[in-house]
């Protein structure tokens, strides 16, 4: 049974009104209803609690009492304009005003507005929220960002710069006004921009914080066009329901320099180690060769001395003569080996004295010294144009002398002819010493530069086999390289490359680098 009396209807209506009234009063946001004169015609308890007034004391007051004195006039203006052209305004970031509590304390309040036409005319419902704590947190965030000793840039999800701190301004050379609203790619070199847009968008999908040092290093572009190496950390930041990406940026120019210096140092240490190892190996090989080659004549001497003793008085003169002759030859040979060894090791032992050396003058001296020999042999030495180079004149003299003598010595049936000329090459000079002698088969080209390596018996061509080894050592000490271009029976062309800068390795590698290192260590 449903009561249908006016009394019952009134009770129902009262109950409904009671619920509505409670709803309006107890809603956790403060609200008020404003008439065209700015008078608060209705409000809830929350408004008084927010502004610190006694219950019921705000009804009938002008809205501007809730604002700081200095804003009141401007607010009246705004209010009038609003009533003239009412428009709904939802709550949200940026819809903020400064409220004034009864205690005189100011606080941030966010406001939403809704025009309500009523019987009493147009009224406005204003809903308010105390956002003071949030505003303070934001201010703290901004202050922290501003004062951070690292450059920081806050970027929205579209990549637009919304916040720039002081460090970022000085890092990139832009003022914050110039950067606000620009896409972040303005801070990158042109070539990286499109790739960055892609990786930025990819990052937004995951939004995993990326700590500094974890990601790739990036180059940044300053306003003046210079490029700086950067390290970047990324963090998602939530500000008032909106997501941003905070980039923390460190200029790593100094660190890069240190890293480069360190890796340069490492390379140099490796190089020095290699050089040491190489020189150690060379020493071992050298000791091996030397012990072998010095023992050979010693064995002859010992052997024939023994035989001579055996022959004694009973032997024939011719045998004794032969053995004595071989003993003497063995001694001479031993002497020659030792002299040449000293010459070879002497290249290392003496410090290199670098100065300008006119190779034409040097070469002419060598030719003049050989004038008699040349005439006797009917040999010719032709000197072409030669450069002035930087090097040790004694050693360069020895080098040219050995190469020229080599050309004269290993002659064929033809009259020996030796040509010397110089040519400019990238990074240095190439000196070529060419002869018309017996030539050397390519398979022996490496071997002939080794200590005491010979391609002929002593009977065919006398000598210890040190000359070209000395040449190579000299050229290497000058940071250059020596090579041979020859076929059997077709003469030899020895090429010596002398670099302008002995510290630089020759264009196709070689031993210059290790050599210069040895010098630096020495």
């Amino acid at each position: 049974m449903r009561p249908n009396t006016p009394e019952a209807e009134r009770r129902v209506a009262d109950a409904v009104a009671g619920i509505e009234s409670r709803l309006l009063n107890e809603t956790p946001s403060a609200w008020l209803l404003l008439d065209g004169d700015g008078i608060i015609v209705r409000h809830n308890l929350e408004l008084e609690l927010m502004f610190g007034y006694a219950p019921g004391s705000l009804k009938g007051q002008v809205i501007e009492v809730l604002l700081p004195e200095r804003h009141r006039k401007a607010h009246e203006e705004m209010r009038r304009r609003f009533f003239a052209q009412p428009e709904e305004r939802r709550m949200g970031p940026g819809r903020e005003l400064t409220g004034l509590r009864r205690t005189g304390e100011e606080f941030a309040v966010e406001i939403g507005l809704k025009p309500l036409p009523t019987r009493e005319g147009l009224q406005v419902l204003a809903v308010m929220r105390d956002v003071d704590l949030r505003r303070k947190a934001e201010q703290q965030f901004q202050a922290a960002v501003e004062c951070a000793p690292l450059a920081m840039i806050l970027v929205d999800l579209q990549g637009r710069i919304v916040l720039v701190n002081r460090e970022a301004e000085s890092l990139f050379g832009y003022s914050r006004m110039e950067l606000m609203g620009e896409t972040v790619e303005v801070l990158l070199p042109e070539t990286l921009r499109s790739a960055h847009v892609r990786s930025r968008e990819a990052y937004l999908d995951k939004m995993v914080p990326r700590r500094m040092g974890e990601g790739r290093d990036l180059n940044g572009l300053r306003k003046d066009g210079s490029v700086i190496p950067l390290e970047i950390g990324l963090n998602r930041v939530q500000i008032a329901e909106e997501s941003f990406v905070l980039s923390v940026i460190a200029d790593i120019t100094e660190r890069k320099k240190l890293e480069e210096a360190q890796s340069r140092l490492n390379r140099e240490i490796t190089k020095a180690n290699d050089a040491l190892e190489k020189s150690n190996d060379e020493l071992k090989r050298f000791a091996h060769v030397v012990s072998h080659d010095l023992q050979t004549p010693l064995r002859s001497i010992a052997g024939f001395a023994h035989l001579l003793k055996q022959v004694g008085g009973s032997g024939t003169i011719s045998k004794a003569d032969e053995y004595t002759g071989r003993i003497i030859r063995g001694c001479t040979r031993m002497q020659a080996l030792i002299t040449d060894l000293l010459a070879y090791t002497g290249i290392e032992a003496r410090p290199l004295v670098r100065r300008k050396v006119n190779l034409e003058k040097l070469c002419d001296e060598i030719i003049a010294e050989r004038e008699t020999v040349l005439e006797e042999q009917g040999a010719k030495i032709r000197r072409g144009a030669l450069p002035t180079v930087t090097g040790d004149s004694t050693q360069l003299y020895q080098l040219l002398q050995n190469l020229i003598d080599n050309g004269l010595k290993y002659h064929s049936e033809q009259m020996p002819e030796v040509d010397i000329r110089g040519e400019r090459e990238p990074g240095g000079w190439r000196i070529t010493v060419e002869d018309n002698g017996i030539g050397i088969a390519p398979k022996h080209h490496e071997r002939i530069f080794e200590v005491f390596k010979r391609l002929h018996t002593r009977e065919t061509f006398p000598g210890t086999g040190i000359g070209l080894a000395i040449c190579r050592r000299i050229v290497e000490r000058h940071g250059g390289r020596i090579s041979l271009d020859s076929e059997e029976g077709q003469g030899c062309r020895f090429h010596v490359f002398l670099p302008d800068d002995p510290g630089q390795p020759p264009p196709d590698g070689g031993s210059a680098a290790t050599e210069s290192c040895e010098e630096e260590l020495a």
Partner: protein
Amino acid sequence: MNVSKARPAEILLVEDDSDDVLLTRLGMQEAKLAVNLHHVENGEQCMTFLRKEGEYTNAPTPDLILLDLNMPVMDGREVLAEIVKDEALRKLPVVVLTTSGTEGDLLDMYDLRCSSYIRKPVDFEQFQSVIKQIGEYWFTVVVLPDSTG
């Protein structure tokens, strides 16, 4: 090695040093070995000899090769490598005679399967005894009639 007693052993000495050639020759005489000592100066000549080419068309197949390691043109290591590659020559016994006694040489030699490796001593008496040992090891020692020639 079976060498007929009816003929002296054929030995090929590959050696560039004329002193060592003479000392070896005298050492063999001293040891009274019945050998025909053939001598070549380097590896290339050695290969020509072994393959009976050119001036060595009538050369005998040696019963033993005495090979010096360090020679110009083609050294002992290259000769060994060549011999090992050659089906017809790889069975020939080779004794490497050298001045160097380093491990590296030794290993090289065994890798190349030379028959033995003997270091030339500086002392002539030792040298002679080495030559004698080679003879005793490889050949029947034939005592020759005493001769001062």
